[in-house]
């Protein structure tokens, strides 16, 4: 995993290559702002079909979270298999709790 990146054989060239600029993070920021604005605008404008609004809002949120976890928390980078497993495991159990609460508590 992370040790690969720091084995003595991969020298200066690779490390300097990995130095990334702020550009792509600003792109992620702008995309996050756009996704947030779409969500707020859809609600503020009103008159949007409720079912459609719920789906739109959730899709915007999931996109934004994937962007931020991928780029800002570096999950897209090499050597992040275990962190991805940890997070997906957490999200899976969290999702199970939510499904339980929505469909079990109000079952009739």
């Amino acid at each position: 995993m992370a040790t690969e990146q720091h084995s003595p054989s991969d020298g200066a060239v690779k490390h300097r290559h990995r130095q990334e600029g702020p550009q792509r993070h600003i792109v992620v920021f702008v995309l996050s702002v756009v996704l947030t604005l779409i969500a707020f605008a859809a609600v503020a404008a009103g008159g949007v079909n409720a079912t459609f609004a719920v789906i739109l809002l959730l899709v915007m949120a999931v996109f934004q979270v994937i962007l931020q976890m991928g780029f800002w928390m570096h999950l897209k980078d090499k050597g992040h298999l275990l962190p991805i497993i940890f997070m997906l495991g957490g999200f899976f159990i969290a999702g199970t709790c939510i499904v339980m609460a929505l469909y079990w508590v109000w079952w009739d």
Partner: protein
Amino acid sequence: MTTAHAEAAGTLPHEPEKATLEGRNKVLAFWLFLGGESVLFGTLFATFLALRNQTNEGPSANELFHLPLVAAATFLLLVSSLTSVFAIQAMHRNKPALLRNWLLITVFLGLGFLGLEIYEFSEYIRHEKFGMTTSAFSSAFYTLVGFHGAHVAFGILWISVLIGQLARKGLTVITAPKVYVSAMYWHFIDVVWVFIFTVVYLLGKVG
């Protein structure tokens, strides 16, 4: 430059948070912690979603929430997440002064977010008669959003202490993993807020 060379030359390796086994272990363990935090917030979201329409004749979500305030808080937290990215980039370029400045800006934006949340809660309690025990909806709301706010408060405290530690001990392979992990925590707080403004506030307005 390899880690060994960097240490011999007295400079910082390119990714100082991953230069030592302890640093790498800290980052990996923190991911496990964030997986656990996801479960914790998941249970709070589940409770909120199950109870969000049980208003007990108190205010409903639609009557209560003001979108401009929520949008302002969202923007503050989103920008603070970006500034903590810049802090880590400054760290990777071995610029301690720049790192400190970006961390300070992150802390101030976090304080702004917290201030808005405190103002919001106090308005609800004083003017809307919307307290912790008003309804199942209010209890679930304050527990979920308040727990997130407590995370923000803890993050502010944590990063502030790190700024002090950086000033005393400098940027080393010991302090770098601490900064990196605190930035991961801060991003996670913003990720949770994305779900809160969507599920609590915007879905509350939709009904």
